[in-house]
């Protein structure tokens, strides 16, 4: 035996691929300046895995025919059920927080511009799927607000005619709440699994964006980025733990803790925090079709952003544009707060104004500012 062979670690000499992995992980090919926020996509994926596992436990006990009662049973009578349910409910807040933060960062840095359009589209697809999954999960709670949101949504869908009506009837399976929740439980799981597919495409497309060649002063993934990922993961877990154990109802409408009942109509149907902005934009559109068109338009301007931005792709986004993105984020927060407030004329007017600014930002301000900057 030669010296190099005997020096190999025990496991690697028996499973050579372990050595290939180790050398691959330690190979100095990565640039040194990846920030902590660059770990967000991995944290999102990890949360999704965590949600799948906690969801699996909840699925064992969940009964769409007694939705509220079965969740109450999980919380009160299943061993550690309150913890698993808390993980699943607060995991939603964590994953949406991470996705919104990642999208904000992509906007701020102009990462949606060529050649990053596909990565941007996949991020948006991830947001839309996640919102659908979140909305279905929220309806599945069977709480008073969810119950009436479902009654309103399915009623509006049943009233549609022609092709939209057929789609609506297929999704809701009639205006009956219990039968609908059985379908939604299936959609909730199927769409959540589809999210893994979107994430896989996202990582593949993002990898293709990497500049070929080894950067100057390159470092290996291990130990440099493993240490960074570990630190990011622990900080994320700390925030998660504080929310699960000390603010378990954060961002929820408290009225949704009451059982859904035809005899109890909540004042206003404010959804959980991550759906407030979309709900507000839907509210602006007249009628069911108007609501659908308004929401589609809200997402369409995001998809059109690579073309609405007239700047040179490689150039930095510039101070004025960054300020506009911060204002846009504040506008979305304000829109959410207006939607969460008790129904009033003032809240309606503010919702309209903030929605108007949202579209103004993408359709007027973005092309104007970026074209002016590109000269």
């Amino acid at each position, binding site marked *: 035996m030669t010296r190099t062979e005997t020096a190999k670690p025990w496991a690697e000499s028996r499973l050579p691929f372990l050595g290939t992995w180790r050398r691959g992980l330690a190979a100095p090919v990565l640039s*040194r300046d990846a920030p902590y926020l660059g770990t967000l996509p991995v944290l999102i994926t990890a949360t999704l895995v965590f949600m799948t596992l906690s969801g699996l436990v909840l699925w064992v006990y969940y009964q769409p025919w007694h939705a509220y*009662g079965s969740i*109450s049973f999980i*919380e*009160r*009578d299943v061993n550690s059920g*309150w*913890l698993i349910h*808390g993980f699943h409910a607060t995991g939603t807040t964590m994953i949406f927080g991470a996705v919104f933060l990642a999208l904000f960062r992509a906007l701020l840095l102009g990462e949606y511009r060529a050649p990053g359009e596909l990565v941007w589209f996949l991020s948006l697809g991830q947001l839309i799927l996640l919102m659908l999954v979140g909305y279905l999960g929220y309806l599945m709670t069977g*709480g*008073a607000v969810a119950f009436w949101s479902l009654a309103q949504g399915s009623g509006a869908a049943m009233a549609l005619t022609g092709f939209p009506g057929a789609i609506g009837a297929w999704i809701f399976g009639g205006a009956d709440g219990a039968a609908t929740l059985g379908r939604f439980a299936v959609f909730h799981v199927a769409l959540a699994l589809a999210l893994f597919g979107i994430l896989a495409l996202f990582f593949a497309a993002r990898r293709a964006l990497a500049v070929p060649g080894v950067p100057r*002063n390159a*470092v290996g993934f291990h*130990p*440099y980025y493993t*240490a*960074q990922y*570990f*630190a990011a993961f*622990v*900080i994320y*877990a*700390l925030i998660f*733990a*504080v929310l*699960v*154990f*000390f603010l*378990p*109802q954060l961002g929820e409408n*408290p*009225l*949704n*803790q*009451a*059982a859904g009942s035809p*005899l*109890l109509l909540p004042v206003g149907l404010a959804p959980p925090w991550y759906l407030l902005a979309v709900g507000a934009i839907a509210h602006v559109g007249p009628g069911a079709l108007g609501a659908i068109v308004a929401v589609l338009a809200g997402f369409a301007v995001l998809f059109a952003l690579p073309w609405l931005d007239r700047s040179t792709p490689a150039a930095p986004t510039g101070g004025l544009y960054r300020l506009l993105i911060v204002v846009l984020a504040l506008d979305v927060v304000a829109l959410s707060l207006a939607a969460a407030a008790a129904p009033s004329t003032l809240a309606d007017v503010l919702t309209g104004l903030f929605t108007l600014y949202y579209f103004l930002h993408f359709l007027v301000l973005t092309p104007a500012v970026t074209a002016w900057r590109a000269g």
Partner: protein
Amino acid sequence: MRRLLLTVVALVALTAPRAVAEDTLNPPHWQSQGALGSYDLAALQRGFLVYQTVCASCHSAGALHYRDLQALGFSSDQVAALASNVKLANGPATLDDAFKNPFPDPAAAGAAFGGAVPPDLSSIVRSRPKGLLYVYRLLTGYRDAPADATILPGHYFNIGVAGQQIAMPPPLKDNQVQYADGTKPTTQQEASDVTAFLAWASDPNLNTRRKVGLRVVLFLVFLTVLAVATKRKIWRETV
């Protein structure tokens, strides 16, 4: 029923550690409030006495079982004795029965109260914004109606609810119950205690959640310091 409850509560009060006397009524506050608060078992037991003597005659609390009362400091035998005094359709209640629903269905309840169905109280504190204060203000909000107020038939003037009218007659009055631990049973005290009990009913895992949570968070704070320090040390060595 009431005498037995009193005996049970008295027995427990003798063995349980006494809470330090504190004016929790001015302004109304509860030990479970705040990030690290926990339930006051003495208040929960007094609150259960009020609940069982007053509220339970009209309201259901279907998510609760008699066995859950052991979390209030009652022994299994005490709770079994207590449950056996509750008559269900198929005989006396056992530990594993849900709290008795005084009406067979909402329609019967509605018929008994002129259309106003008494809500289920399992999650009442959790399902209202600022639930503790909401319940307390509702229970202590009954006043004489001002001369210019139009009160609906079968309703009572109450400054604690939206619209200032409620179909529930004033449920509490001074000396409605006799507390075994010597606490003076004023209307405010009864309201405060039953509110504490309903808060526990809404969120029975609060004590465990905060105890586990504190350990987890402390561990993660320590781990965060360690992880960030490690990361910085590893990166410093490359320069």
